[in-house]
Structures are given as C-alpha cells and as structure tokens.
C-alpha cells in the first residue's frame, strides 16, 4: 500500500512534467464495454510476456463525505484484508508467490488497484480482483489495525520533508472548502474518527463494475482480453452508484492568499498558485494550456529559464505548469527553490516579468516548435506497460476518454495561436496566491 506520491510521481513523469503524454503506439489501444457497464481498455505491448492489470474505480478522496476525509484511502488499504473467499493478506501473497508486484493508489478523483506480473498469472489476478469488487469483508479488529497503520504512514510521510506540512496547509486554505484542498489520506483527527461503517458505505456506493475501468497493458491481444474480461468480470451485476456533486470552492470576494512560514530549512521554497476548477471535461482549451505551460517552463529554452536562470541567476530548480489531469481540481502553479532567502522578493518580481515576457514573445514559430516537441514525446508512454497502465488510470480517472488520447496529436496541432495569446495576455493580469517558506530569521518583506 505504497504512498500516493509514488503514483503521482510516475504519472508526473509520464504525463505533464516530463513532456511525455500519449503515444502514437496507442493507435493499437482499444476499448470496449461489458454488459454490466464495465469499461475495458487494452494496450498491447509485446516486448516480453508480462502485463499490467488494473481496475480503476472512479471514486477517490473527493468523494469522501465531509468530515470523513481518508475514507477512500482507508478502504484502499482494507481491500487487501480479505473477502468472503480470500483470507486477509492472501491477495498479495498469491501475487507475490507468482512473482508479481501488487499495489494500489488513491488519488483525488479515482482509486486504482493493479498488478504487474508474468502474463500467465493474469487470470489469477483477474479472479482475485473481480472477487474483491463485491466480496470485501471487513472485521473490526482488522479495521482498527489498518486504521492505525494508515495513521502511522501519514506521520512518516509528513516527517519525510520539512516543507510537507506547510504545503499541505497551503493546499487546504487555497481550495476554500473544496475537497481538492484536503489531504488525500485525511488529517490525523479524521483518520482516527473513521469507522468501519464509513468504509463499508463508500464501498457500497462506489465499487461497482459500471463505475470501474479494467486496464490491460502488456503482452495480450484484444480478442483474448475480451474473452478473459467477460470470463472474470462479466458476471458481476451492475449497481446504482452514488453521484454527489463535488462542492465548488467558496467565494472569497477577491481576497488573495499569501502564506508565509519560517522553519529550520536550508533551502527556501516559493509557490505561486492559480486554482482553475471551472475548466470542464471536454473543453479542448486544455491543450492550449498545456502548450502554454511548456512554453513557460519546459527546458532551457523556456521563458522561465531565460528569466530565472539566464537573466537574474535566481535558481535553476523550478517547475511551472498546468495540472490538467483532474476533474475539478485543475490548477496552474509555479514552484521554485532558492538558496538565498534574501532574494525572495526578486523571485516574485521575476515571476511577473516572466509572464509578461511570455505574452510579448509568443510567435507562430515558437508555437510550431512547442507542438513539435509535444508530439515527438508521444512515443514514450506506451513503452513501459506499468507506466502506460498508470497513465491510463489517471487519464480515464480524471474524466478524459481514450479517444482524446488517440487524437492527442490532432488536438495539439489544432491549437490556434490566438488562444495561446489570450492565455498569455490574461495570466499577468490575474493575481496568483503565494506560499513562501523561508529559514528562521529570513525576511518576507516585499
């Protein structure tokens, strides 16, 4: 039950930050639906007889009831604790014995359970996964043990980096009551208050074949995938699934947040953040935003590199981009590390200058270059079946369609320069919200 951050890192690598989204090889990807509404996505990859088998439920931490943060995540843990047929711990034991990796991850919008193993063990994995879709059994002792484990893991995670709690707090404040501001695993109080009823209710409300996607990425052909999907998942009856409207962030009458903290750190951090929840699922403007964020921060030819590194020598450790793989939690961010706390005001000034420079310098040539890069990167994501599977879970779990992925190249090519100019012109006018972490004794004066 590894940390969500590990999953996110993989996705990050594959999706946004490393300029490696979809793949031309996804031309071979196919999808179909079982009678019970379960979506199945198959991406063949015949390097070696291994496969990624995943079931993604379209429910994540944003579906936790108010005050019950951590439900989805705790359920994820408990899914390994046994069903009517399978004893607690046997799921992983059986996969391990057969040389596979078994894990799961809870995100804001979805939860994915997956195995990476020799293709000959796929049927075993499918049997087990299908079994726990309906047969989960939660006994009170196990529940309490697992809740304690989740609690301990949170402590470990928070203690890993001195800035973790600070940025968690910032995220909470900035989202103004929206569940995207909550920590995925819940706070300490929330975790300790969770009951087995909470978890069982979530399971009943969300874990059904018609609310799930089966992902098969690796050494399999579509025909066999169809047969096996039908054989192991076809008999599970569909169920009514809870659809609750995710609360929007509360209005703030234009107040802009500025969170500053001093801590015993050697390196300072700064983050500028823009919430953008209003971009709905099928709006193709996210492709324009993607290119815009590449333009700002991807590589040494990017605008931010020119300003922060070349011009002002402030830092070369930064990241800027548009996080679009989210149903209602999309945001735009800039994150930078810097050694000398005293240059913090310069970091903020440079940020503004970078945005204005971007608006001024965007050109057709530049846009062509950006498109070329994004499209060239298409080839990577379906190389590693594990990465492909996790990426598909993220893509589909945040409301996008496989067809969107297949047409990614077209969407990118179709981005009009006027749209980029619109975005580039607007960004310097919007005030971001800031999080600044400085060493003790450091100054935060403007």
């Amino acid at each position, binding site marked *: 039950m590894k940390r969500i951050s590990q999953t996110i890192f993989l996705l990050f690598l594959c999706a946004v930050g490393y*300029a490696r989204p979809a793949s031309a090889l996804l031309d071979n990807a196919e999808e179909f639906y079982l009678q019970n509404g379960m979506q199945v996505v198959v991406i063949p990859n*015949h390097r070696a007889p*291994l496969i990624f088998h995943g079931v993604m439920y379209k429910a994540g931490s944003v579906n936790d009831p108010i005050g019950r943060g951590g439900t989805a995540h705790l359920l994820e843990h408990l899914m390994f604790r046994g069903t009517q047929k399978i004893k607690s711990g046997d799921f992983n034991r059986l996969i*391990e*014995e057969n040389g596979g990796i078994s894990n799961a991850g809870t995100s804001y919008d979805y939860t994915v359970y997956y195995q990476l193993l020799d293709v000959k063990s796929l049927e075993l994995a499918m049997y087990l996964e299908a079994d726990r879709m309906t047969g989960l059994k939660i006994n009170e002792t196990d529940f309490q043990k697992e809740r304690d484990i989740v609690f301990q893991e949170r402590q*470990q995670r928070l203690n890993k980096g001195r800035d973790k709690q600070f940025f968690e707090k910032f995220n909470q404040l900035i989202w103004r009551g929206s569940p995207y501001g909550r920590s995925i695993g819940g706070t300490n109080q929330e975790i300790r208050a969770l009951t087995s009823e909470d978890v069982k209710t979530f399971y009943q409300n969300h874990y059904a074949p018609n609310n799930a996607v089966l992902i098969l990425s690796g050494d399999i052909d579509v025909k066999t995938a169809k047969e096996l999907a039908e054989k192991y998942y076809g008999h599970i009856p569909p169920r009514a699934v809870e659809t609750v409207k995710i609360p929007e962030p509360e209005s703030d009458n234009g107040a802009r947040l500025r969170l500053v903290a001093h801590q015993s750190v050697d390196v300072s951090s700064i983050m500028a953040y823009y919430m953008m929840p209003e971009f709905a699922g099928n709006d193709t403007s996210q492709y324009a935003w993607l290119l815009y964020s590449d333009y700002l921060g991807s590589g040494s030819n990017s605008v931010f590199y020119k300003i922060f590194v070349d011009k002002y020598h402030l830092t070369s450790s930064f990241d800027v981009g548009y996080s679009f793989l989210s149903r209602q939690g999309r945001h735009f961010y800039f994150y930078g590390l810097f050694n000398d706390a005293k240059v913090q005001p310069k970091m903020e000034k440079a940020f503004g200058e970078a945005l204005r420079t971007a608006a001024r310098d965007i050109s057709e040539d530049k846009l062509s270059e950006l498109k070329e890069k994004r499209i060239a990167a298409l080839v990577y994501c379906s190389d*590693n079946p594990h990465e492909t599977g996790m990426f598909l879970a993220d893509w589909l779990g945040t409301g996008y369609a496989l067809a969107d992925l297949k047409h990614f190249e077209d969407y990118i090519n179709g981005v009009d320069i006027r749209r980029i100019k619109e975005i580039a012109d607007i960004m310097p006018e919007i005030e971001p919200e800031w999080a600044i972490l400085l060493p003790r004794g450091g100054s935060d004066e403007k």
Partner: protein
Amino acid sequence: MKNKTVLSNSLKRWLSFAFVVMLVCSLGLVLKQEAYRFNPQYLVENSVLNGRDFKAEVQQIESPKLKIKAWLYEDYANPLVNISIMFRRAGVAYDNGKRFGESVLLADMLMAGAGKYNIKAFQNELERRAASMNFEALKDGFYGDLRFVTKDRFKVAELFNLALTKPRFAPEQLKVALNSAVTSYYRHQEDAASYLSVAAEDELYAGHPLGRNVYGSPKTLSAVRPEHLRSYLKKHLVTDNLIVGISGHISADEAGHLLDKMFAGVPQKNTVAELPELQVSFSEKVVVFPASTGQEIGRLYAAAPARLSPEFYPTMMALELLFGDSLDSRIHKEAREKAGLTYGAYATMRFNDRLNYITGQFSATTDKFPQLLFIVNEEWQRLGREGMTERELNTVKKRLIASDILRYTDGLQLSRTLLMMQKFNLGVDFLQKNSEYIRNVNLEEVNTAAKKYFTEDNLRLFILYAENKNQGVNKNGNDG
C-alpha cells in the same frame, strides 16, 4: 405364525437404485464444489496465456573502427533505443579531494553546450526530438543514459560525441551548475534518509574517498573551475574505462556504427590509479546522529561475499528471506503482522570498487522505532543462529524466479542491466541463467552463508535519532 417384514424384490431393487442415485448425486455435488473452489495454481497452470516462449538474447558486439565493446538486446516492440554507459574509475571517490563533487558538476556541464551549440541550442536539439541524454556521477562510476527514437540516432550520437569531445564549459553556465548542486546538497541534508546515509558512510569509510557523499559539498564544489572539468574529462572518461549496454530498436550492425560515431576522438588510455586500500570494521558500536525529525531511521552495513563468489546466491536468499519485499519476509512477519508496526525496511547487497557489503534501511515513527530496531537486530542474529527451512527457501526461490520477467518492463532498465552484467562479469547468458542459478542453491549452502554473515559482529548500525519527539504534531496528536 409371526409376521415377517419382508422386502419384496422390487422394493429391494428400488432401494438399491435410490441408494446408488444418492451416492452419485453426492459425488456430483463434491466434484462441483471442487470445480468452483478457488485453486490459484490451476488458474496459472491452465491459463490460456501460459506457455509463452520467450528467449532473451544478448549479443556481444564490437564497433568496426574503434573496437568499442557493448552488449546489445535487440527489441523491436517499440521504435525506441536505450543506451546506458558507464566509465569506471570516475565518480566522487576519484575526484580531487579538495574539489570533490567536480564529477557531479561535470555531469551537469556536459549538457551545457558543446561544439557549435550553446546550451539552449544543444538542449533544443534533444528536446525537439524528445530525445533524452543525461549524466550522473556516483561514488565509483560516471554514468550516462540516452533514450531516443531510432530514426534520430545519428543526431543523438553526434550530440553525445560533441558533449564528450568539445564541451564548452562556459563559466556562466558553471555558476548555474554550482548553484544547482549546492541547492541539491542542502535539500538532501534536509531529507532524513539522505542525511543519515551521508553521515553513516562518512563514519563507515573513515576518511577513505568512498566515504564521500554524491552531492559534493558547498566548499569543495565552489573550488571547481572549467580547467578542472577539462582535465577530469580527459583523464577519467576514457574508452579503457567504458562499459556500454544497449537495448531497443537497433541491429548489431547499426549499433556498431553508432558507437564509432559516439566515441570518435574520445581518449582511450586509462591513467587513473586504483583507490587506496580499505579496511572497514563491521563490528563497531551503534552510532547515533541526533536530528530534528519525526521519524527515526536506522541504516545497517555488513560484510558480504563478492559478486562472483559461490556464497553470493546463498547469501542473497538469506537476505531476501529477512528483508525481502514480501509478506513472508521475517522482518515483515515480526514487525507488521505480530507487532502491528508501520515501517519501511529493505536491504540489498552492494559492490563498489573496494567493498562488498550488505546495506539497508529501516524506519518508523519515534514511538515505534525502538521496537523495530530490536526486531531487526534480533531477526538478523536469529537467521544466523537458526538458518532457514527448506520450505522458506523454496518460497523465496519461487518468488525470485517468477519475478525475473519484470526486468523487461522498461527498456532503460534493460540497458542498465546489461551494463551491470558487464561490470560484474556475470556472463552474456546471465538473463537466461539467473533463474537456474537461483534454482540450484541448496539449503546447506544457504545456512552456511547465514551462519557466516548474519552475526552480531557483522552488523553495523547507524541511527537517526529524533532530538525533539512529536515534531510536526501537537500534544494531542492532532495536526490541523
């Protein structure tokens, strides 16, 4: 006359028939249960996907002109090529003591402009093709990875060659690289696990160059000048010290020609001396480093057999049983299942230019750590005292053999594996043979190795100790 209850013959026949029918039905029910009873082995053995024939062929190739050697795994699943290179006798242990970390800066600066390309042009050539090239200096090796689409291989080879033979090493770029390296150093000081690892190895190696950390140090990094980088390049990154692993969409012929392009003009001769001799003691007392942290971490070090020693596989089995990432591992059973602890723990064997050793790490929150430490210590010694059972050995073997296929998940992982195979002289048939080697290990060998290596005197521990407990949570354990 008494009345006798006599079953008529027809009734007898009927009853016998009924009895037989009942028997048959019961048998049928039992068999039906069998078919629906969960049988994992059956599911695997009878899977329609079983019986895939898979042969991993590795070729030894040599480039036609320069005679550069490489190991190649041809793989046409995707149009990508992965090349992993390594220069021996390079890395921070081989840096000048006053400037250690110079190889770290070199790794950065090789990407900062070469030949006719300044840094932007150079990186743009790669980025627009979504090709990647990066270098990394570790303790006793200087590594490089290249990933690209096969049709771009000539351009990538040209860029690589320029980086190695005509790097610009512009002073303003060196400043940027220095800043970045110093930031990285401080960030790693803040990370509890990195901090401990650096402090522990500093103690363990007691002044030997292998004890240097891979981030350099702000003082020694700032002493590096472009001329130092130039001489380092000429001296250490020579083809005598080179190992290459290639996997992907490329033939032996194409790979050979590519190597000649990549290494044209790169000096050949090695003049780097071996590292000084090293004596490490693994039976010293526990060393504790206080820090402000909410979790406590332990690092362990122990002597291990050489990679090609007959004790290697037996020791690997023992280590797997103890620390393996499995529900059956001894540590997991004691710490997680019995004591209900949440923890992280792993250990592995490592081999550097002067030392064969086991190293690992385990961590838990401050209140649970003493218990975890006790378990680690106790289980380590118990393994040495009691050894393992045949059953345990078979479980470990089965898992290791079954998971072998996962090494083919990623193309770059494969090219790195080919690198390691050469570095440790594992043989070109290693990928096919590894499972066999594992299968051939017998219980006696394992327990002999366990007795030798898993002892109190062969376990050196370093602890990161929380100075202020409950860091990050207030008194009630609430946090927000």
